[in-house]
């Protein structure tokens, strides 16, 4: 197959793909209760898989073919869950005022004054705070704490203790970008759904839509143990902090050297984060694929953070792993933002890398 055919048949982000991502982002699926997102995925992938099952923790495991004689078993992982909160006590039944705890990493400074939704019916509410009219200058200097905030459901009866909730920001396309909640990691989920629609010559694709990533990579751990793949590719969404810098007091030309990733620079290939050192053979394979096909890519800056790869690569006798992320601004806030072009290039890079992947990749020494 020549390059032209390859390019002609490659996956593309069309209105259909956008609609799927919109549904996924608007779903309420906080760590520990991923049912809504999982059901959406099941509907989408049904025509493209021969088998799927939900494991004991709620991971959705999908197999393109039931039985295969192919050599390389490749696990794709994308997490279904998003950060959010759980109602922990009812302070005033009549008023519908609830205390809550955070689920996953949210900066409490993002909470005050935000519209939220709670429970299977997406009951609407708001995280209230004192209006500026009533606050003192000193109060305005103090940061909000979760203990001091309440979810106001606008009256009793629509929520109960133990319900999960999240921000109520609807999905919106703005210019060449998408603004939504939960792009981390519904955009990875949407990418994995697309990948299941294609065939790959030299491998079996095993896709895990994982649970409880945001509370410690818990779902991926058991999914990888069960699937026992030869290698794993994790699709996630990683923060970009690529905004212009304030000019510092120095003669040295200012430059943002700590951006993690940058929007518009293509898929972010992980090298090392707090939980995983990517397999250099897989890094080389993705880089070569990108360069050969002219797909833009960037390296995510090494440092903190972690993806499902952190749990996956340590399962059983070891699973060579890599993470590829769509860069996103303002993750874990009510409104994160990604470029559609970065999403499409991520999908294409992973697709083409899978097309070219065979057991040979693991024959060289790491």
């Amino acid at each position: 197959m020549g390059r032209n055919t390859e390019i002609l048949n490659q996956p593309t982000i069309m209105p259909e793909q956008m609609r799927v991502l919109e549904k996924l982002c608007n779903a309420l699926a906080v760590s520990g209760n991923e049912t809504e997102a999982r059901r959406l995925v099941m509907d989408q992938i049904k025509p493209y898989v021969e088998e799927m099952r939900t494991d004991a923790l709620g991971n959705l495991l999908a197999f393109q073919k039931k039985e295969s004689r192919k050599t390389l078993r490749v696990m794709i992982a994308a997490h279904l869950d998003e950060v959010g909160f759980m109602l922990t006590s009812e302070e005033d039944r009549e008023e519908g005022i609830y205390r809550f705890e955070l689920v996953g990493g949210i900066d409490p400074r993002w909470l005050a004054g935000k519209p939220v939704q709670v429970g299977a019916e997406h009951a609407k509410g708001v995280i209230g705070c004192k209006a500026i009219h009533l606050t003192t200058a000193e109060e305005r200097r103090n940061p909000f704490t979760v203990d001091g905030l309440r979810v106001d459901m606008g009256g009793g009866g629509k929520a109960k203790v133990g319900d999960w909730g999240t921000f109520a920001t609807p999905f919106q396309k703005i210019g060449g970008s998408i603004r939504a909640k939960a792009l981390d990691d519904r955009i990875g989920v949407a990418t994995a759904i697309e990948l299941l629609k294609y065939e790959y010559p030299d491998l079996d694709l095993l896709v895990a839509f994982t649970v409880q990533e945001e509370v410690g990579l818990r779902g991926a751990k058991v999914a990888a143990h069960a699937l026992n793949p030869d290698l794993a590719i994790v699709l996630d969404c990683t923060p970009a902090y690529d905004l212009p810098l304030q000019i510092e007091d120095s003669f040295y030309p200012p430059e943002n050297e700590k951006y993690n990733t940058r929007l518009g620079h293509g898929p972010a290939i992980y090298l090392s984060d707090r939980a995983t050192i990517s397999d250099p053979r897989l890094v080389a394979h993705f880089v070569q694929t990108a360069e050969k096909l002219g797909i833009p890519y960037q390296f995510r800056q090494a440092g903190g953070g972690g993806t499902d790869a952190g749990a996956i690569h340590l399962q059983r006798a070891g699973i060579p792993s890599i993470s590829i992320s769509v860069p996103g601004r303002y993750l874990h806030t009510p409104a994160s933002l990604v470029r559609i072009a970065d999403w499409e290039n991520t999908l294409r890079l992973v697709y083409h890398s899978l097309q070219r992947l065979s057991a040979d990749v693991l024959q060289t020494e790491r």
Partner: protein
Amino acid sequence: MKDLLKTLVEIPAPSGYEGQVRKQIREWVEPLVDEVRLDPLGNLVAVRKQTGAPRIMLVAHMDEIGLMVTHVDQQGFARFVALGGVMPIHCVGGRVRFLNGVQGVIGMEKNPPSSEIPSLEKMFIDVGASSAEDCPIRIGDVAVFDQSFVDFGKRVVSKAMDDRVGVAVLIEALRRLEKSAFEMYFVFSVQEEVGVRGATVAAFGVEPDLGLAIDVTATGDTPKGHRMEVCLGKGPAIKIRDAGMLADPRLIQWMVQTAEKARIPYQREILEFGGTDARAIQLSRGGVPAGVISIPCRYVHAPSEMVDMEDVENAVKLLINLLRSAPRLDHAH
């Protein structure tokens, strides 16, 4: 044995990038064992078979702490993060060497107040470039401290004593040992410094009946240092506990009795921080009895780590004696 150690410590092999040192180790151990294999994460596993004998996993880690470049700026300076426990205080003014041979010096932003230790974020590597274009270093390149081996006679100094000295002890034991009571799995592990990751998967793969790690431990014998019993030159240390594990009491007893019987000097070690690959073995599958032979080492994780060659020699002797007769594991703790 000094030559063996010198060759090992001078090879750069930061966590995740152990290929160069593994190649050298493989060359040495391949003729000494029945089987050598690499596992999916890059651990080197060398097996001396003995059907029916208890299976022991002996592990020393190949990796050393290092640095990874995160950004090269317009002027050709490289920002970096640590791979493993690199202490900022050891960096400023130091030299590093990349896997491709490029050398650099570590500089920092304007001097902080004297009471403050600058964080790694305030530092950069200068490889003598004048722009990003002529900088031979790219984001993702990895480096180690650039410090050569120094021979003080009885004591020796280098970067990466942690844990090439353990690797040297395993290789030397393999060379000298003829008969063993075990089926022996010599594991040269990867990624210890970033969280005992290599040993975690190696232990699952080997599925041993018991395990021993050979690694360095800190000492309490330097001016106003940590309060700690272990001294340089008083023999290998038998680990009782560290932050990551409580060594199996049956193995401690086995090690102590073996040392006393063979008149090998030893020390009892309580380390209040740190951990070793033995933790990963201990927690593998349904649980595995595990212990550690520690080599006392001053200035652990500094660019110049010091060990005493008598301790190293005695660690080899202790290990060989241990491998000649298996401990009783049928009684309760």
